[in-house]
């Protein structure tokens, strides 16, 4: 285990250890508590930056750098044990988690008049450790457990330090998120039992990526598995219409918790959907792409309209964060829509990164506005720029970032996603989606104008109180500056993160992309070449991939004159058979394997399709023979 791998573990462990220390430190003075918590917040961020610098040269296993594993925690024989690592996709998200964590931590540390101060810090630290774990754990169940680990502090924090209506909100959120977590857990189980965890690295992102690269065939209904993941994760990410928990939760939760949850934890589902859904279940994604498009459109247009009606600043930011999930979902769907172009996925990752920072910044600044005016009601404020110009400047910057102004990281994510949706059908949907840039501008600028422009309305603040308003303090400025700097640096030099994202996506998602490629290129030739039999699942044109000119991978198959297929089940000789590429058909394979003459049913499994065949009909010549490809697995019953 290299030094950097240890650092990664240290990054996750530090906040948790600090939280543990705080839990047993009732006798410590307040300053010491702050110091312990401060270490817990700052160390992971420094490590994350170091890891970003070290990543390009680090030793990688299938794209995962800083790999480490703890076989004690888990059951290696079942393919389930704790593993850590970062690839190009999780690295920026891990960095974002660390940066938002530091900002949220500083916000927590500078919060005054908190009851149970030590516990407050500890809860925030546990949540921070959890979100760091989510993006650095690469075995799937640990990834899930870290999410739960971060979720529990959210309940606790809302119940103990929440605002108005905390109990109802906590219960609502508990119901929703438990449901979402359960459904996604079911999806993960289904994926596990479908055979995704069989490799050297067990049921982990790394293991799945390798299995996909080797042409893994899932032994299950990919469409259902994907649906479980989509809706399970969808609830956690507040996909329309499962969003009701989000605005209330964020509005009621203490600000550091809102920052961490809306900014970081919510990306859990999207991250899972990319690393598991799009990677291992591309056909499921293709099946559900229209659902994603319409629901995400609900996020953009309907939630966007609702956002416009909000008078409460924190509610508005909360709704806007729900709205911004729409484009990210569309980025994922774009992988299928565009026929295997990973640009949309890349845009989604960039937007996840950027949105995490910008929404955290907005929550942070919103709290600063509240500290000065004593209310979140925007209609009661006005003209704050005169007294707090720096706060106003930060707020305008945060609003501009969140509505996708070039120069901030959000813009690159949105632009890439919109561009990758060029092939969407019907075409007017593209206009409806891009409408988000208008809607977000409307509510964003309205908020700026109401809070900071014009004159003091005199409702929230009397003229006298207005005169005494101070600009933001150093302890408020520091977190704002950290988040702002991260947004701008990536906004001006997007290649800092996109290089890694792009490399990983191109390497890992090539097999999945090929699936769509085969689907698209085969569209014309489909009628002759494909045998479509009744089957539960995506009936895909099984066109040999080498017909596909647009994807380079297909050409390798032309070179392979001989292909190898695996036959199992009701045959006399199970195992691998080599056939010549020209006349490799199902009948030929069955002949070689000496299939049981009473066998009635066979299934051809390959990366791109699952073709069930009725053997009686095949023998009678009622249906055409099935051409085979390299790596096909045939199961005879």
């Amino acid at each position, binding site marked *: 285990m290299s030094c950097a791998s240890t650092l990664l573990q240290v990054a996750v462990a530090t906040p948790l250890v600090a939280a543990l220390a705080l839990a047993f430190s009732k006798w410590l003075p307040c300053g010491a508590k702050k110091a312990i918590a401060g270490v817990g917040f700052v160390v992971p961020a420094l490590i994350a930056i170091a890891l970003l610098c070290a990543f390009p040269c680090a030793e990688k296993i299938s794209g995962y750098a800083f790999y480490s594993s703890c076989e004690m925690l888990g059951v290696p024989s079942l393919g389930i044990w704790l593993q850590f690592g970062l690839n190009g996709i999780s690295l920026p998200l891990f960095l974002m988690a660390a940066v938002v964590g530091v900002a949220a931590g500083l916000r927590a540390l500078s919060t005054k008049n908190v009851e149970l101060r030590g516990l407050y810090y500890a809860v925030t630290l546990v949540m921070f450790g959890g979100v760091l774990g989510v993006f650095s754990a690469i075995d799937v169940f640990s990834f899930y457990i870290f999410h739960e680990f971060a979720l529990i502090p959210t309940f606790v924090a809302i119940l103990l330090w929440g605002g108005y209506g905390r109990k109802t909100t906590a*219960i*609502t959120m*508990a*119901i*929703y998120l438990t*449901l979402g977590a*359960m459904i996604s857990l*079911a999806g993960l*189980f*289904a994926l596990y*039992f*479908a055979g995704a965890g069989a490799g050297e690295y067990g049921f982990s992102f790394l293991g799945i990526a390798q299995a996909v690269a080797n042409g893994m065939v899932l032994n299950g209904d990919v469409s*259902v*598995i994907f649906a*479980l993941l989509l809706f399970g994760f969808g609830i956690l990410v507040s996909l329309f*219409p499962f969003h*009701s928990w989000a605005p209330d939760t964020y509005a009621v939760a203490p600000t550091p918790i809102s920052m961490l949850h809306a900014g970081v934890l919510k990306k859990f589902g999207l991250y899972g959907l990319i690393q598991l859904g799009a990677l291992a279940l591309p056909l499921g994604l293709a099946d559900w792409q229209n659902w994603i498009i319409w629901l995400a459109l609900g996020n953009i247009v*309907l939630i966007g*309209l*609702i956002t*416009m*009606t909000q008078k409460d600043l924190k509610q508005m930011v909360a709704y806007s964060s729900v709205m911004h999930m729409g484009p990210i979902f569309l980025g994922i769907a774009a992988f299928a829509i565009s026929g295997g*172009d*990973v*640009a*949309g996925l*890349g845009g989604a990752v960039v937007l996840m990164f950027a949105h995490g920072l910008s929404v955290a910044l907005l929550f942070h600044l919103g709290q600063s506005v509240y500290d000065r005016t004593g209310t979140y009601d925007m209609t009661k404020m006005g*003209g704050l*720029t*005169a007294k707090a110009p720096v706060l106003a400047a930060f707020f*305008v910057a945060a609003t501009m970032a969140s509505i996708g*102004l*070039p120069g901030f990281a959000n*813009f*690159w994510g949105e*632009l*890439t996603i*919109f*561009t*990758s949706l*060029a092939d969407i059908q019907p075409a007017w949907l*593209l*206009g409806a989606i*891009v409408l988000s*840039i*208008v809607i977000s*501008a409307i509510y964003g600028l*309205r908020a*700026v*104008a109401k809070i*900071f*422009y*014009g*004159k003091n309305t005199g409702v929230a603040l009397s003229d006298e109180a207005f005169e005494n308003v101070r600009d933001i303090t150093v302890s408020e400025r520091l977190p704002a500056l950290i988040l702002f700097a991260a947004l701008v640096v990536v906004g001006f030099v*997007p*290649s800092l993160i*996109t*290089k890694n994202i*792009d490399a990983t*996506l191109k390497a890992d998602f090539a097999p999945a992309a090929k699936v769509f490629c085969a689907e698209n290129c085969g569209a014309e030739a489909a009628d002759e070449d494909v045998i479509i039999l009744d089957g539960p699942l995506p009936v895909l044109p099984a066109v040999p991939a080498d017909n596909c000119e647009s994807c380079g991978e297909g050409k390798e198959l032309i070179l392979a004159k001989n292909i190898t297929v695996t036959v199992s089940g009701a045959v006399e000789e199970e195992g691998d058979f080599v056939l010549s590429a020209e006349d490799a058909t199902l009948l030929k394979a069955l002949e070689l394997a000496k299939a049981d003459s009473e066998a009635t049913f066979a299934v051809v499994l390959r990366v791109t399709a699952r073709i069930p065949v009725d053997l009686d009909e095949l023998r009678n010549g009622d249906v055409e023979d099935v051409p085979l490809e390299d790596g096909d697995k045939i199961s005879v019953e």
Partner: protein
Amino acid sequence: MDNETLLRVILLTPLVAAVVSAFFFRRSRVVAPAISVTAAGVILFASLALLLGLDPANPTASATLPGFALGGFTELETIGLSIDKNGAAMLFVVTFVAFWIHVFSVGYMDDDKARGRFFAGLSVFMFSILGIILANNLFMTFIFWELVGFSSYMLIAHYYDTDYAAMASKKAFIANRVGDLGFLVGIILCYKQYGTTNFAELGELIKSGEMTFTSIGLLLMCGFLGKSAQFPLHVWLTDAMAGPTPVSALIHAATMVAAGVFFMVRIFFLLTPEVLTTMLWLCAGMAALGGLCALGQTDIKKSLAYSTLSHLGFMGAAIGLGLPEIALLHMAMHAFFKATLFLCSGSVIHACHHEQDMTKMGGLLKKMPITAAAFVVAGLSICAFPWFAGWYSKDMILSGAYLAGNIPAFVALVIAAIGTTLYTGRMFAMVFLGNAHGHGAEHAKESSPWMTLPLVVLGVIFSLGAGWFLAGTQGLPWLDGKMNALFPASATGVFAHGYHDLHEKLASAGLVAPMFILGVVILVVGLGLAVVFYRTSTGEDKLREHSPVLYKALEYRYMDAFYGWYIEKVQQRVAMFVAMLDTALINMLAMRGVIGGVPAILGSVARRYIQNGNGGIPVFWIAFGALVIAAALVCGVL
């Protein structure tokens, strides 16, 4: 320095200036303006060095900056900066006008508390507009397009403590974003269709016979409608006058709004005849309407803003008529005389202690002779007085419309031209003639040299002389042919070609003399009427006095009223309705009802047996239920 370095310097200097003054000299009264003006000077100097070094016949240069790529989206892999003959013309005009407006701002903003913010904003604007000029593909254009909108927003909101500026800045940004919605969709479709958005490559593709599409052209035109404030997105420009006057001169008259025209000229080859026709009607209509509505404003800046709308309409109409070079020529000439007019108005406003109402001015001719002289020259230029800058471009557009046989468009443009002479004469009469009617005007003094020098340079020299190079077929070359009259030769190639081409066509049709006479008639009649009618100012607008109905009709803002109705009665209501549905159906019924209710019933059943009445039970029932469902699904899947 080689051309690549120069291009990078031109683009990045204002960015550095903005960052330095925004972060370190926010409160300074001297350093921030100094940085900003120096930056503008450096840009002007670098642009001149670049333009003088280019081949006048074929001015091209390019450079790159690192960008990013994701998957199949590789259009921004390198950020390419390039310049061609259109870009060269625009670059000179923008950097030259901008430098003098920066100088003017030093004088105009001398009593402002937020000079740091103002000058940082100007530098951000310079960065953005230069980005549009140097962009070599559509995506880059879009990036800087958005940034221009942002800097315009920030500068309009300079006097943030007035509700009017707050509203105006918001309106400007949102109207631009509406245009950008179509613009971005158009760019994406263009990228999908042609596989590239590089201007040069697109041009080659179209030349080699690729089809052009009306849909793409119309969508791209949306960007122009927003940025150049044409119907139906013109509503923001008049309100944008809430910003400081130098901002109105630079951004909302000379450069940013003209960027829309520049962009349409750049993608002219992508426009189908249908797009051109649409553009012609929208813009010719706007030209006539703007020219007349300018008479219905007593605020000097708003009147000028309508004039800008009208002249942007002229440029758009020129593109619609298939005369992109003439559109660009008018863009350049307009930049000089309109910037001068705005700066004159700024000088007057500053002298009258920030009084903008023309009815409260008067008699400033003797008190402010330099300003008045600059106003006269620029005013004659905008009215197309023969051999002044505006005469070369504006009358050419009129002639072009007549030559194309498009009589309705020609009539609209003639109305616009008459409107121009009327409002210019009216403005001159109300501001400079007669007696002073307000406290400010009575105590007015000529402005400081910071303000009068730009007036002299931009107004007297350029409004008068910019057209000279067109006077002879060979121009007026000097400095080994690197300069042509007052312009670098590489920046004038595009104008000269289009101008002489059209001039020859006119000559062969025998229309040169009739058009000249028509122009002079419009000028004499319009100016004469206006000066006679408004000369004896009484502290009240003459038209409002004599014909209140007509004045009201000119003053009333129909589209604003429509949008106001739409936002209040349609958009807001729909939004409220959706919000209500969300609460009622999704939150209450589905969430609390179904998801909460079913387990609650189960829970109450269970409670009868367990008898513990624990409120937390529903949560666990849900967890349990979800597990059961999940298990069932998993079994089903396997």
